């Protein structure tokens, strides 16, 4: 457990991917095989279920720390994490050899069926014999909430470095429903799987941002234009009667999008599609947030499939009838794609084509771009008709021409402390606009400021508080911020009558007095112009 807690600390301590990979490789070098298997499972979100209710953990924690419940609650409020709160304040004695990760996984899973009194004894024993970081990991494991800031892709990369097995092959081997109980490190990682070739993706071709409009691109007729969809870039592979879905991060996400399994009967074997994984319901795209929530979930439940179903908006085909056709010009690939998608329509409604935007002049296209927001698109994609499908980000053939965000100048009126990891700083702000001399709150936003600005704003808030209520302070209505947002909707739930999509702070308008901030009327005008 000591070694695993050390790995956790190392992964937790850095945001640099190189360092994370190094730390993992060192762990794989040092840990016994059965611990490696558990580490892989835990880092792939295959964590055991919660074995102790958090209300009990809280009670036992306060008891072990010898403090009243209210003080425990206050401390928890500051730390923002139950497992860490207890790890920090329960007295423990560090034992040099605290047992292997596998020992503790068995210990924890063994508690599941026991009564609360016995569980309490086992938990208290564990707390007393582990160091702070081990205790933290233990608490996360019994709470069923163990998480590490590490993508599956990086874990696979580290394992590839350690084993000298190719990354894509490993990604394939680690897919699916295995648990440490029904496999071994040797079987799962080392032994070859006959299917892994079938799952191999092509590298994605990435577009460059078009900063100054398309005039520099030459003649309009040389270009295809499509909307830029607000989803996740994905590649769906149908080979050997199986479906594999890869995300842009070259992560194998087949299990996350079961909708695409239907493609195996809908498109010919030996097809690879490039497109956008897009939440889509009743003939309409849904906001990106819907997809984000879905990705965050460990299991794809029925409810998720009903609330946030996805389609693939296909815009390219890279392999057809088992043949790599990336060298064909996109006009030809597009013709094949249209055929494949239209034939698939009988079997699945989860595969759509990304329609071309008709235009004759750049002005026409510019006008269409301005309508992007109504379709929940982020702008226009331009693709040179004669271009092959290239690898990586190469300038010249694919361009993204995004729409500018909408903005409004608003006054900060409340500030909230970040929970947990941001407990000491005021990072979340509520903004208001003027309406007949009064300030009406209309949105919250947190991201967008630089470190230095966050500090400065935090200090200003602490010095200019009118009132405190729990983690929230009302502040003098003085500071003006420019809020950028992607969309606007009428809303009955908000006092202001509007709701923004993806609001964020664009900049701090220290040059602007509060009296010159925007009005509710301005927002209503934007709503009339862009709402929907």
């Amino acid at each position, binding site marked *: 457990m000591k070694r695993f807690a050390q790995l956790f600390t190392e992964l937790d301590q850095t945001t640099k991917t190189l360092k994370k990979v190094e730390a993992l490789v060192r762990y794989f070098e040092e840990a016994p095989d059965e611990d490696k298997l558990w580490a892989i499972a835990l880092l792939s979100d295959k964590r055991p279920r919660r074995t102790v209710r958090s209300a009990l953990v809280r009670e036992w924690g306060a008891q072990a720390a010898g403090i009243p419940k209210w003080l425990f609650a206050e401390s928890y409020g500051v730390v923002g994490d139950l497992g860490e709160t207890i790890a920090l304040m329960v007295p423990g004695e560090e034992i040099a050899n605290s047992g292997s990760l596998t020992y503790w996984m068995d210990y924890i899973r063994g508690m599941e069926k026991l009564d609360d009194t016995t569980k309490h004894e086992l938990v208290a024993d564990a707390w007393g014999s582990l160091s702070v970081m081990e205790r933290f990991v233990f608490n996360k494991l019994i709470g069923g909430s163990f998480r590490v800031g590490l993508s599956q892709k990086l874990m696979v990369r580290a394992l590839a470095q350690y084993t000298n097995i190719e990354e894509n092959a490993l990604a394939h081997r680690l897919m699916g429903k295995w648990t440490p109980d029904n496999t071994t490190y040797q079987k799962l990682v080392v032994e070859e799987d006959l299917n892994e070739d079938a799952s191999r993706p092509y590298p994605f071709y990435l577009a460059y941002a078009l900063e100054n409009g398309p005039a520099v691109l030459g003649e309009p007729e040389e270009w295809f234009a499509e909307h830029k969809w607000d989803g996740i870039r994905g590649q769906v592979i149908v080979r050997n009667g199986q479906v594999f879905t890869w995300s842009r991060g070259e992560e194998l996400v087949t299990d996350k999008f079961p909708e695409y399994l239907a493609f195996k009967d809908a498109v010919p074997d030996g097809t690879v599609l490039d497109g956008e994984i897009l939440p889509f319901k009743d003939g309409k795209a849904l906001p990106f947030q819907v997809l984000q929530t879905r990705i965050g979930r460990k299991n794809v439940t029925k409810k998720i499939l009903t609330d946030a179903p996805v389609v693939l908006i296909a815009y390219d085909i890279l392999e057809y009838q088992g043949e790599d056709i990336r060298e064909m010009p996109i006009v030809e690939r597009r013709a094949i794609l249209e055929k494949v998608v239209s034939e698939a329509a009988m079997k699945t409604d989860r595969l759509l084509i990304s329609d071309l935007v008709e235009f004759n002049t750049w002005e026409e296209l510019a006008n269409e771009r301005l309508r992007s927001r109504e379709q929940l698109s982020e702008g226009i994609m331009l693709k040179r008709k004669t271009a092959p499908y290239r690898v990586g980000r190469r300038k010249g053939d694919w361009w993204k021409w995004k729409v500018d965000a909408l903005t409004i100048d608003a006054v900060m009126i409340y500030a909230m402390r970040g929970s947990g990891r941001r*407990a000491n700083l005021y990072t979340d702000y509520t903004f208001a606009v003027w309406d007949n001399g009064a300030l009406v709150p209309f949105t919250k936003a947190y991201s967008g400021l630089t470190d230095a600005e966050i500090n400065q704003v935090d200090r200003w808030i602490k010095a200019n508080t009118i009132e405190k209520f729990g983690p929230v302070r009302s502040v003098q209505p003085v500071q003006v911020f420019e809020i950028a947002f992607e969309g606007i909707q009428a809303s009955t739930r908000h006092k202001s009558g509007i709701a923004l999509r993806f609001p964020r702070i664009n900049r701090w308008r220290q040059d602007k007095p509060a009296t010159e901030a925007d009005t509710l009327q301005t927002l209503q005008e934007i709503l009339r112009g862009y709402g929907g």
Partner: protein
Amino acid sequence: MPLLEFNSKGIYCQQADVYIDPWRPVDRAIITHGHSDHARWGMGHYLCHKHTAPIIRARLGVTNIDTVEYGETWSKNGVTFSLHPAGHVIGSAQVRVEYRGEVWVASGDYKLQHDNFSTPFEPVRCNVFITECTFGLPIYQWQPQEVIFNDINNWWLENSEQGKTSVIFGYSLGKAQRILQNLDESIGPILTHGAIENMNKVIREECCPLKPTTLITRDTPKSAWAGGLVIAPPSAAGTAWMNKLKPLSTGIASGWMSLRGARRRRAVDRGFALSDHADWNDLNTAIKETGAECIITTHGYTGTFTRWLREQGYKANEEHTEFEGELSEINEAATKEADEVATEKEEGKE
């Protein structure tokens, strides 16, 4: 009338007409220690421990300072004063105030852990004890400083093996010297940022010797910091000054670093939980050892800590001051998190 009262200017002893650590200009001030939230500019007259005097002279440019030794007493209008070690930074003192048999102690900032540099804290018996509670929650429990310095030295060694310069951030008064005196100088050379070296110079010339350090100037050759460790103030983090030290690894030493969130939020590579303030257990120990029946909490988690003390049977109250404790340190090591979330979204979407 209480012997010491809290007014808009500071902690005031009316009987002797003197303030302790005032935050507005007053005629006569007793200063507990040299940190800028306790020692401020503009007092008619300063009185402090002899090691604090050169520090505030250098920092504030003031000359009207009288000094005393720990334990030395003086009286004014029937009130007897003396200073006692607070263990916070060099020269830091608790102020003992006695009048007609009643004893109050204003402890400024303090810690019980021995740091191998500043004079260790001494409990002083009193009736009323004025205490900070910067870390007045049970989640703050320091590890022995040997453990932390072991981590720091190992980090330094590892960086030096990888050809990286180690840069550690800490307050120029206190944390910097504590780090310096506890480093394993066999690992490599120890260098300093100008702000740290200025303070070191004052301490070397007027207080006591320190381990040798090399100031980094414009003319210092790169070879001077090969395998070395640089001590810099938190305000130097992320400035252009750091560029020439690359490749480098950065660390910050602060009590706040005991929380995972603070460690993750910092813009540095490593966070070391090292504080010059008392942790939860030490606050409770210190209070108990004064024998005081009445406790006044000044800065930190005052509300929570006061309630806890009341439940322990003390008469406890909180008072508002303008002391900040270690608060500003955390703000120096601030968040990249929001930016990271935004980038991740962009990356995933393409």
